[in-house]
């Protein structure tokens, strides 16, 4: 009789593992707009299938909760059922013997809280409030670019048409082809089969292959004038669409060049000048007037703009920075990320040769600064972050790229003070080691570890811990703000300021380029309506009809970068585009949700801008 055995996965268990993998794939492609009650019931059903059946709350409680939710879904539920559901969920959460039951009940409570309206609608009207969103990528893209459409065009080799189609919703195809965070890929239905389509990669193919694609002709002049404050992605997006609609647009930009954070925030190795220039040139080719080097609120008042123009769009971005807020921050050799990247944008690159540099922060800006410092000749670059590396808000590729280029990530270290030398120069950053604690707002909050402070010697400290909106001049003229953010509603309107709109980073706080573009497009549509028009934009090109779906699992083509040793000391473009062969295969993976599934019935394509 053997005493012990090695566990080998049997076929049944392997199959179970595969099914869980299927579930993970499905989660990755969870469609938007499904009924939360249905989803909660299904989730608890899965939890129930994992129950051992020993303890009452899990075995019976989960089952009863599923039954109650199904009753509600069938339009037979009462307010009393809702009450029983909630009390049961509390009891199960509080008393189940292990997490299998308790956490399922917590999910029910989360749902009852967050989706209360829908539960109530089911009970009181027998109807669900939800509406299935047919094309996940278009829904997820803040600008709602017709992604299946342009993928089909790229597949057919109609690159210029694909650019025209993208520009219908987003005038920054080139910039987005390189730096967009591609939220469109997050719920790509292809993830059910294998992985999301590499949408940004396909867009880059379109941009590179299409060359220069001129802007369409503008509508006849309407005689209306619109001022746009800020020449970043949001302001220029609004400018482009409003000018196409026939309005006369003037953009006021306080810096010497247009582009906003695309120029003054994003390093050139990620977004080379020629790509940015292409987008800006096309936008300006529509006849948009530009005044650079002018600060609204200083040289020209907002009041003046309101007098001279029929509408004003404030898109001033978030170009100030947060200081480190620690002792010794007055030392020489302390710099903000914003200052460094702004200098880079204007071509005034500092020389970091031989320097030891510490970057403080964990977001994408911290990574941009880290990798820029490396390229500027730094001897060492250490990125110091309070939390764990996995908690960094920077994209994983950015973090990995920085490490590959020889930068160090120093996680779980909180800056305490700056140590100065006799001349007042930075000598070191003193940090307190941290340990990840309980979750607060979805991330473990770091707390001081029971370990002594550490000293990180350095010549320069760059703070990348957040940008701030410089809205004081506008607030002084009566623009409502909250913690420096301009208060605009979801239509980009400012309450009690007729004809003044605001959007982008200055209203939302620092977000991504595509979110700024979303605001610019929203503002353009709503300013046009405000001016009394329902302007049409040039019709999009015709989209090739979908052929059969290739549903066999096939590898996603990922983007490749120049090798770290090759790229880490220059500012040339880092990313290598797809080959034609790769692009064609990647396009063929697209499931054409605009044609198959609900898209074939609802909402695959529209002539005019509509709410998605």
């Amino acid at each position, binding site marked *: 009789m053997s005493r012990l055995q090695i566990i080998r996965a049997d076929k049944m268990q392997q199959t179970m593992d595969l099914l869980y993998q299927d579930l993970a794939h499905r989660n990755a492609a969870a469609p938007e707009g499904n009924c939360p009650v249905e989803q909660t019931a299904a989730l608890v059903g899965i939890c129930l299938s994992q129950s051992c059946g020993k303890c009452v709350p899990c075995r019976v409680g989960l089952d009863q909760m599923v039954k109650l939710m199904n009753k509600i879904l*069938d339009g037979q539920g009462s307010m009393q059922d809702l009450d029983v559901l909630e009390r049961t969920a509390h009891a199960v959460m509080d008393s189940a013997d292990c997490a299998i039951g308790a956490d399922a009940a917590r999910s029910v409570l989360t749902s009852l809280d967050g989706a209360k309206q829908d539960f109530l609608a089911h009970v009181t009207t027998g109807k669900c409030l939800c509406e299935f969103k047919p094309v996940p990528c278009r829904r997820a893209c803040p600008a709602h670019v017709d992604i299946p459409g342009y993928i089909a065009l790229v597949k057919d080799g109609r690159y210029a048409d694909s650019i025209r189609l993208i520009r219908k919703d987003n005038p920054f195809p080139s910039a987005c082809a390189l730096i967009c965070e591609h939220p469109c890929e997050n719920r790509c239905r292809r993830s059910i089969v294998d992985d999301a389509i590499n949408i940004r990669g396909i867009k880059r193919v379109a941009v590179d292959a299409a060359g220069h694609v001129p802007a369409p002709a503008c509508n006849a002049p309407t005689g209306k004038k619109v001022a746009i404050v800020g020449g970043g992605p949001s302001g220029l997006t609004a400018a482009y669409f409003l000018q196409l609609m026939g309005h006369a647009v003037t953009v006021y930009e306080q810096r010497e060049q247009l582009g906003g954070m695309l120029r003054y925030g994003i390093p050139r190795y990620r977004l080379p000048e020629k790509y940015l220039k292409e987008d800006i040139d096309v936008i300006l080719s529509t006849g948009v007037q530009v005044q650079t080097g002018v600060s609204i609120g200083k040289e020209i008042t907002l009041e003046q703009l309101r007098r001279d123009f029929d509408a004003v769009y404030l898109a001033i971005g978030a170009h100030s920075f947060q200081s480190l807020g620690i002792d010794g921050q007055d030392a020489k050799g302390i710099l903000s990320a914003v200052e460094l990247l702004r200098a880079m944008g204007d071509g005034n690159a500092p020389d970091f040769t031989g320097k030891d540099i510490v970057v403080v922060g964990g977001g994408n800006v911290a990574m941009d600064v880290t990798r820029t410092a490396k390229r500027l000749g730094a001897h060492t670059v250490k990125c110091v972050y309070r939390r764990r590396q996995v908690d960094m808000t920077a994209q994983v590729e950015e973090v990995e790229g920085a490490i590959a280029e020889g930068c160090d990530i120093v996680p779980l270290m909180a800056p305490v003070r700056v140590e100065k030398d006799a001349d007042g120069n930075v000598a070191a950053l003193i940090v307190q080691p941290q340990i990840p604690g309980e979750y607060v707002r979805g991330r473990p909050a770091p707390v001081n570890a029971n370990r002594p402070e550490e000293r990180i010697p350095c010549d320069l400290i760059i703070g990348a811990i957040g940008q701030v909106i410089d809205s004081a001049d506008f607030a002084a003229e009566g623009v409502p703000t909250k913690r420096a953010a301009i208060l605009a509603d979801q239509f980009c309107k400012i309450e009690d300021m007729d004809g003044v709109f605001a959007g982008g980073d200055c209203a939302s706080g620092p977000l991504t380029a595509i979110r700024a573009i979303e605001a610019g497009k929203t503002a353009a549509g709503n300013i046009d309506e405000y001016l009394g028009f329902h302007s049409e934009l040039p019709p999009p090109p015709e989209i090739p009809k979908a*052929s*059969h779906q290739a549903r066999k699992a096939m590898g996603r083509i990922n983007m490749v970068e120049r090798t770290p040793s090759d790229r880490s000391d220059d500012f040339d473009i880092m990313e290598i585009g797809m080959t034609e062969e790769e692009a064609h295969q990647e396009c063929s993976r697209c499931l054409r949700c605009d044609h198959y599934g609900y898209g074939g019935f609802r909402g695959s394509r529209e002539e005019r801008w509509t709410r998605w």
Partner: protein
Amino acid sequence: MVRLTIDGKAVSVQNGSTILQAARSAGIKIPTLCYLKDVNEIGACRVCVVEVEGNENLCSACNTQAEEGMVVYTNSPKVRSARRINVELILSNHNTNCTSCVRNGNCTLQSLCRDLNITDIPFEVSYRKKNWDVTLPLIRDTEKCVKCMRCISFCEKVQGLGVWDVVGTGPRVRVSFRNVKSFADTNCALCGQCITHCPVGALHERDDTVRVMDAIADPNQIVIAQVAPAVRSAWGVDAGLSQHEATVGRMVTALKGLGFDYVFDTDFAADLTIMEEGSELLERLTHKDEYRWPMFTSCCPGWVRFVKHEFPDFLPNLSSAKSPQQMFGAVAKTYFAKQLGVDPSRITCVSIMPCVAKKYEADVPQVSDAGAGADVDIVLTTREMARMLRSSGIFLDELGETMFDEPLGLGTGAGVIFGTTGGVMEAALRSAHYLVTGENPHPDAFSAVRGMEGWKERTVQVGDVSLKVAVASGLGNARKLLSAIKAGTVQYDFVEIMACPGGCAGGGGQPITDGVELAAERGEVLRKLDSSAMIRFSHENPFVQKLYEEYLEKPLSHRSHELLHTDQSKWDI
């Protein structure tokens, strides 16, 4: 052209054709259910799935493009199995009480099951129980709904209303009102096009046949029928007669056989409408500044509901003349009752209409003026009439011909074309010409307003007056036309609108032949009746003339106004 192979047959079709079109052109039948040409090509039911060589998944023939070199199998083992299971799955969600279904014998799902030799359902059958106010003219039976989405698409894309929508997601998806809780809150015109485009019995009109048979059975009641023009173009389909056999005279005989005491013709009232509406047009033209322009016809209650719901600003533009149905009712319960020497309450006035909205119109309290309850008591659709005939045991094909009764049974060719798009306009212009010039035009002088275009505009000469007229059918077209008038991009003097595409011939109360639009063909039947009519001018209808002499005096007289005109803005909706 694209060349492909379907079931071993070489087929060549236009670029952009679907596999379904390609197969049909080669005489290969692929069964469909949710498919509605150009309106609902959404691949929902998965009944039309076919196998395409080199493709692991089956694809829906209705919305997959035929491609060069494609090799398609429409009846392979894989196709047969999937198609069969899919139909069985549909049945598992469907109340298959076919024997007592209004669409028994004319149901696409039923014939599909027969064609696929489905004799058993391997699944548990369950469906959402129906919950509908059965007093409404339009009934939705969720127990029958197969979620083909045709009603949603037709209402939205063709009629431009969007009454219906998908509600919920996943297994509990159903079709219900868009964004509102109850029927009363919708913008439904009651055109009934969702009924005629439903493949099953999920949508139908309120059945009022029992009320009619009860009235006939009541010895105290004098039950009179009026038959709308478009009914005669289609009634045979559901009654089991060929177009050749389904003559007007046989229809009258059959209705008499059912027990109606008098069978009259709505064409008579159409002629009367022309007298009132034509005179009103001339009155408006002579006092141009006192009226809102253009003047709109008002005989279609679906259109009136549409204006009330969506363009109330245009209510003053509607002609105040009642529809032929309501003029008939008002005359029947006054003039005719007097002629018979009976109290009007003893008359039950039944109208047979190609229409669902007419059920609403007859029930509008403000429209009845004869002082004896409703002027029109009961409205039956063409389909209901056919169902009554089928249940009567009359051998329809052996019936002889009978003329409509007098005096309210004589209609002119101008009256009969009321049932097709452009017909009201043409009839009005014929008589307007006479009223202006004192001379009849050639009866076909205004043929330019004929044709099935959804929105046509013409300039016509009526004596010295040049009139800019427009004709639209289908509410989607009506919306475009009204929006253009509102925007000032078009200007007209007189506009005819009918809510159903092609006019009443394609009405929501007409017999259903799934997948075929018959408005044009049926309109032709009416055109032929007009061209062969003895009298082709409403003002020459001798009984209309007599009615004016004996009772109404003249068009737009005080009594005419009391009985034959209405203020649609006051109507309950």
